[in-house]
């Protein structure tokens, strides 16, 4: 059995959990999959309805607010009870916070930030970036215990998940013998608005090519026609043309929408790391050598002020 550890906050399932399920399905080759969720609730119900395998819900008051101590104890207990062949989770900040401690406690290998799988079952090897993406390593976990694998956000397709008949939720109880040493305060944002671009299905993003704040509506109209969220590269937010919580990239949000339209964005690596997980990338830029074209599926070299209004008109025309 392959165990996927899903992630939720206040009952809302983290979208990246579906990517972990996609990775598990690729690896499984007929092996059953179970999805573990700590805190259960609505996240467990969503997983059960999708029918991706048995859902195991860990319910314990100590798991209501995440702390690494409680999470490690709970997942370690679940792994001991269910004896999976592999444990898979998304490479979120939460996984980064506790998975190394879980692996150390269980004395099993942890393959982190995985972008691909070769083979299936216990003989599988995993691809992961090294040296800041300059190289890709193929890594084989050693030893007998179940390896823990964390999947890079955007590397596996949430929409590739094969869904089946609704599953039942089985409650799992584990003994959390010691109290968590960490005490947590409520999460907060420093930016003015709360926008979670990570959940957006379509994004229209603007870069320096938009030239002025009063040109932003050109992009906003396209976004509205597409049903997309508006986003930006760092310089746009630094200038205050869009709020900081619209920023995509290493210092902003990491996104993996179905469609990402980059308008006047050159494609510096700091921006690319935040959006290269998008399924379809469109780049519109005046500079034919802009690095954004290296990751784009579709490109148009030209003036965005001519092309974007034409796109907006075309979409509006066809949807009426």
């Amino acid at each position, binding site marked *: 059995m392959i165990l996927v550890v899903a992630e939720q906050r206040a009952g809302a399932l983290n979208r990246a959990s579906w990517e972990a399920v996609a990775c598990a399905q690729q690896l499984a080759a007929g092996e059953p999959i179970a999805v573990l969720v700590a805190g259960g609730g609505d996240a467990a119900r969503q997983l059960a309805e999708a029918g991706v395998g048995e859902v195991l819900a860990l319910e314990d008051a100590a798991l209501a607010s995440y702390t690494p101590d409680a999470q490690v104890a709970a997942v370690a207990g679940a792994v001991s009870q269910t004896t999976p062949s592999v444990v898979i989770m998304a490479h979120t900040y939460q996984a980064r916070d506790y998975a190394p401690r879980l692996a150390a406690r269980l004395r099993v290998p*942890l393959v982190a930030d995985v972008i691909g799988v070769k083979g299936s079952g216990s003989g599988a090897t995993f691809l992961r970036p090294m040296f800041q993406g300059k190289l*890709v390593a193929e890594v084989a976990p*050693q030893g007998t215990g179940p390896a823990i694998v964390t999947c890079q956000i955007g590397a596996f397709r949430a929409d590739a998940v094969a869904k089946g008949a609704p599953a039942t939720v089985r409650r799992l109880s584990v003994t959390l013998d010691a109290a968590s040493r960490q005490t947590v*305060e409520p999460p907060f944002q420093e930016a003015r608005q709360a926008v979670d671009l990570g959940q957006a299905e379509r994004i229209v993003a603007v870069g320096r090519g938009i030239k002025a704040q009063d040109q932003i509506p050109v992009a906003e109209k396209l976004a509205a026609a597409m049903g997309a969220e508006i986003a930006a590269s760092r310089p746009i937010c630094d200038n205050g043309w869009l709020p900081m919580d619209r920023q995509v990239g290493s210092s902003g949000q990491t996104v993996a929408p179905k469609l990402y339209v980059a308008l006047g964005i050159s494609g510096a690596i700091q921006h690319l790391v935040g959006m290269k997980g998008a399924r379809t990338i469109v780049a519109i830029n005046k500079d034919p050598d802009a690095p954004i074209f290296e990751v784009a*599926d579709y490109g148009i070299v030209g003036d965005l002020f001519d092309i974007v209004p034409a*796109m907006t008109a075309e979409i509006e025309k066809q949807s009426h």
Partner: protein
Amino acid sequence: MKIAVCIKQVPTREWQPRLTDDRTWIREADASFEMNEPDAYALEEALRLREKHGGEVVVCSAGAARVQQVIREALARGADRGIHVDDAGLGAADGFMVASALAHAMRDEAFDLVLTGLQSDDQGHAQTGVALAELLGIPHSTIIMDVEVSDGRVRVKRELEGGWFQWVSMPTPALLTIQSGINQLRYATLKGIMAAKKKEIRSVAPPAGLTPGLKIVGLALPSKSKQTAMIAGPPAQAAAELVRRLREEARVL
């Protein structure tokens, strides 16, 4: 307060990868090395905490003899002494192995606080610090943007995703992995460089029986995953063609 900072020596950012003949590791002889950047922020934070609360900053690094260069650099920036777990094999080792080697050398020191960068710029496992906390039996928190110390406790600002943060408190001793950009780095002064020459670096043999949890079976350059369809023509026509292909081919509209 007795603070440890774990530092890794990694190839420089300008380094162009060259592989060994069996393509399972880099040709270290061809690389030049520097202090892992996230660890430099951890060192700076440790120096600031010492300036505020007093105590000692001890730099710990595991690897070949060459890692003494980054220990010496940290001493020049103001750390008090160094510990070097001397083993050429640890450069290519996984996070748990490095953590085991460090734990072996650090356990008897009884540090109040252990800081390290959130990940390394070479293998990038982002595991060594957190695994070290488990091996030392102390609580931890990761991706930290602010540190407050008082009365046997530490309160830290942890970065969550999407612009969210959270304050987390725990008793010391504790381990924190530090986010780049938490502070402004200082550089070594000439006086610091001179003083560093007299500071102690204690060499420790690695513990016996370290076994790898991960084996690199191959290293390769990343393949360009995408073929870009460039759409030409007058703006209105190109726009219409793009919209058509997004609908019919990519099916994302």
